[in-house]
C-alpha cells in the first residue's frame, strides 16, 4: 500500500524486540496492524477488507 501512495507509510515491527510498543498497542496476537496509532486490524485479513479498513481509518497520523 505504501508503494501505491505517497501518503502511506508501512512498517513491519518485530513484536518480541520492541516490547514497549507491543505493550503500548496491546499486541497479544500477530499479525496485528496499528493504523495511525489507534486503529487496529487483527489477523491476516483478506486484501479487500484490509485495504478498506486502512483507507477509512480514524484520526490523522
Amino acid at each position, binding site marked *: 500500500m*505504501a508503494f501505491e501512495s505517497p501518503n502511506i507509510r508501512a*512498517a*513491519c*515491527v*518485530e513484536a518480541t524486540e*520492541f516490547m514497549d510498543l507491543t505493550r503500548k498497542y496491546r499486541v497479544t496476537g500477530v499479525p496485528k496492524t496499528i*493504523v495511525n496509532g489507534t486503529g487496529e486490524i487483527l489477523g491476516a485479513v483478506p*486484501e*479487500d477488507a484490509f485495504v478498506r479498513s486502512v483507507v477509512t481509518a480514524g484520526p490523522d497520523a
Partner: protein
Amino acid sequence: MALLSENDRQAVRGHLANLTHRVTLLFFTQTIAGPETAQIAKQILNELAGLSDKITIEEVNFILERDRAATYGVDKIPAIVVMKDGGDTRMRFFGAPSGYEFMSLIEAIIIAGGDDSGLKPESKELIAGVTKPIDLQVFVTPT
C-alpha cells in the same frame, strides 16, 4: 555460520531473479552497545545482498547520523528502510528480519525492484484516493 540454508538461498535467489530496479536497503544500527539482534539483522542482510546484484546494503549509524534517521522516521534499531532507485518506498522493517519478517522483507524487495505492488485494481483505486497521511505498523513475530 550462514543463517540462510542452501535451500533458502536457492528459493530466495529464484524469487529475486526478476528485479528490474536497483533496491538499496538502508540498515540503521549502532556499533557500540547495540541490540544483539542488530548483528543478526546485519548478517541476514549481507547474505541477502549476495543473492542478487540488484540489492545493495548501506549501513547507517543510528547514533552518529541522527538527522538521516529522522528523515526516514527511524526511531529504533535495528531498522531497514527499503529504497528503490535511490527513492524512499516508505516501507520499513524494525527488528531482525527472521521468520515472518524475513518473508515480508523479500516481498518488499520484489515490490520495490519491480513496477507493480501486486494489489488488485480495486485496491489500487481505493488507495489512490488517500489524501491524508496514513501510518501503518504491522506487528509480527518470528514464528
